[in-house]
């Protein structure tokens, strides 16, 4: 176990390094550079050269890479071209709303998805299962923006129960829970379907297994058999899926944030792209990449716990 963990962590470090290199290489490959972007609508070669010199962009590639990665190691993500503020403050500002949405979604997602999956598996082939299975399949087929627009139209505009967007609430969304209802519903819609279907499939296998038969045969109560003996076997594929969902949520779900005008990381990213603010884009890409690596290590650890036999690739 310990050596497995060490190998997994080493792999994670290597993956993060690869992400950093890739982000740098992709930015290098873009036509033009930050100086061209900054020079504005009337690019004057002399002005571009001056900006290049002042930003150190005229130095060789490997030196800039060293500078940038050196900064990353010290937690310095660089400075925005548009405002001159450190990139870290952009991320700190946008992270609050994104984290809030992600947390709320996950807190609702896990019990709801698992519960629906177990419910469907218990009544396999019966009306309850057919209802859960067909509704989840149908809901999964609706893209976020379509569902978002539909919900806004019905609940905000027609019925007037909830605010249509988070405009005017700033980053302190927790003070305005009503504004969170619709975005969280949209974020929940597809992950709930995936999770419920994965748990259902895993539970059907687990409930038909000889070890569950043995537990039932020896008088262990039904609910206990389901949740403590069958479910641990059913959730392994689901944990990997949950890590993917959390990664998706934390990397700022651009469509949802844009639709509901939530000032999260997705919005920061869109604005940075619009302003060609390369350091901010780079910084966000590195943070998202590192987040993906960390979450997948976490998921592998959980999977390792629930399926101690399988060697999770490391």
């Amino acid at each position, binding site marked *: 176990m310990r050596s497995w963990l060490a190998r997994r962590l080493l792999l994670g470090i290597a993956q993060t390094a690869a992400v950093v290199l890739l982000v740098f290489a992709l930015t290098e490959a873009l036509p033009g550079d930050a100086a061209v972007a900054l020079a504005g609508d009337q690019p004057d070669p002399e002005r571009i050269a001056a900006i290049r010199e002042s930003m150190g962009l005229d130095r060789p590639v490997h030196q800039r890479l060293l500078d940038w990665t050196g900064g990353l190691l010290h937690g310095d993500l660089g400075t925005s071209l548009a405002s001159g503020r450190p990139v870290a403050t952009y991320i700190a500002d946008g992270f609050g709303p994104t984290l809030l949405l992600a947390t709320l979604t996950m807190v609702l997602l896990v019990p709801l998805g698992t519960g629906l999956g177990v419910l469907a598996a218990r009544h396999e082939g019966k009306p309850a299962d057919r209802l859960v299975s067909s509704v989840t399949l149908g809901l999964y087929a609706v893209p976020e923006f379509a569902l978002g627009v539909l919900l806004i139209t019905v609940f905000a505009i027609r019925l007037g129960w909830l605010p249509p967007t988070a405009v005017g609430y700033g980053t302190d969304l927790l003070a305005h829970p009503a504004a969170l209802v619709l975005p969280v519903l949209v974020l929940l819609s597809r992950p709930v379907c995936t999770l419920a279907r994965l748990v259902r499939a895993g539970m059907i296998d687990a409930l038909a*297994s*000889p*070890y*569950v*038969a*043995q*537990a039932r*045969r*020896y*008088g*262990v*109560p039904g609910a*206990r058999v389901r949740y*403590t*003996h069958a479910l*641990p*076997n059913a959730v*392994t594929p689901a944990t990997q899926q949950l890590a993917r969902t959390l990664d998706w949520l934390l990397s700022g779900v651009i469509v949802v944030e844009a639709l509901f005008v939530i000032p999260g990381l997705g919005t920061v990213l869109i604005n940075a792209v619009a302003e060609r603010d390369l350091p901010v884009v780079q910084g966000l890409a590195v943070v998202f990449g590192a987040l993906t690596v960390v979450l997948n290590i976490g998921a592998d650890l959980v999977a390792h716990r*629930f*399926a*101690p*036999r399988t060697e999770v690739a490391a």
Partner: protein
Amino acid sequence: MNTATETETDTHAELVAEIEGLRVEIDGRAVVDGVHLRVRAGTVTALIGSSGSGKTTTGLALLGEYPAGARVTGRVRAPDGLVGYVPQHPGAALNPARRIGALLRDIARTQVRHLPRRERARTAHERVLRSLALAQLPDSEALLRRYPHQLSGGQQQRVVLAQALLLGARVIVADEPTTGQDALTKQRIVERFTAVAREGIALVLLSHDLDVVHALADEVLVLRAGRVVESGPAARVASAPRHPWTAELLAADSALGRTESHTMQADAEPEPHPHRPAPVLTSGPLTARHGRTTVLRVPELALRTGESLAVVGRSGSGKTTLARCLAGLHRDHDGLLLLDGTPLPRSLRDRDRDQLAAVQYVFQDARAAFDEHRPVLDQVARTAVRLRGLAPAEAAAEALATLTGLGLTGDTVRRRPDRLSGGELQRAALARALLARPRVLICDESTSGLDPVTRRGILDRLAALLRDRHDLSLVLITHDLDTAALADRIAVLDAGELVEEGPTRTVLETPRHPFTAALLGRTRRAPSGRTA
């Protein structure tokens, strides 16, 4: 057929379970028909018969469990909730995601509900420890924290037995508890179950292992195709069988015991070959590892064309690893493999189609080696399509011919694997390997899970194959010296070392290594069965 009149064993022992006129029908076909069974406290009742004879269905009826969609008639009386079950593969009855202690604690918890809340956990824990001790599992505190895959097969079986003991079972149904075990392990299992019966628990033993039945059973019921053909005290059935089928079962079993003058070569050609044929597969000195542990170290080995080599050893001796090295399934070794003098890549992935076809492997667990969703015939035919490039129709025809040659009907093999018995699947697996037209056929314990009649049948087929196909060589991996006796040569492995190798007769009659002698001593059965 009438149990009551014939029961001479302790009729005073309490009758704890009873089956009367049980008939179980699936899709209109009776898998069990008119079975009567009486189970008394502290005695061992054995149900014997070949695979598919209805033993397991009868045993599970005592637990009130029947196959899905079965129509059941007859009367089953058993202590409600107090019947334990030790399945054939005890590992499957243990939850892979939970520690051993989880289910044991849950079983104990159902028994301590009447106690005050504070005492429940402690009492439950004590009960769990006591049951583990009864099942002969020492160091139980540490064991409770292990996962099933961290236990040996024997430990897994004892844990499953401990579950039944913890339950306070009056009857324990044990399904093939000794299948695939070596002689020493079998001995321990027999002792363990004897101790269980001594506790006053009625044991129902489902087995085709007649040695174990001789050693354990008080009463024997012989089943054939779902019907009881004979029943009575164990000693009487063994010494004076009344039904021809019983006699056949007993005869097949003792035929395997005859180790003298019955090698496959002796069948094939009376004179030893004057010119020894060229080796088809040779391996240089070979050291195999699992991770950092060296598990096998053997000097040079050569397998000649038309020859059969038996690799013998206890479980864990490295015999399967050797077979897997030859077949390309285990590549963490440093041996040089030569097929017809040309190097054979270590890994399956690097072998070309002809090399893949040349070395074929028949696994111990035939059921696990088939895809459960496709008819057996299709899967068998696929080998010829993949490895010999035959057209599907041609391959299917050849597959059907080979399967029929092995005694399977076309009807049977068009079904999916779950409708075939273990013996039938093992024959299908053999057919699948043969369809590749292999030069070397490796059988890894292919007959160990089978009843004597079926085992005898498969070994006869193998002998016939060696006779008919002159270019075929055979590697038999087995822990059973009776099976090994059918080969030309024997190699004996112990703890990863090759301790002895030579012609079968020499090894069996004048073993040079003490380990071989010890193995021989245990496997040779007593000249006559146990007499009361």
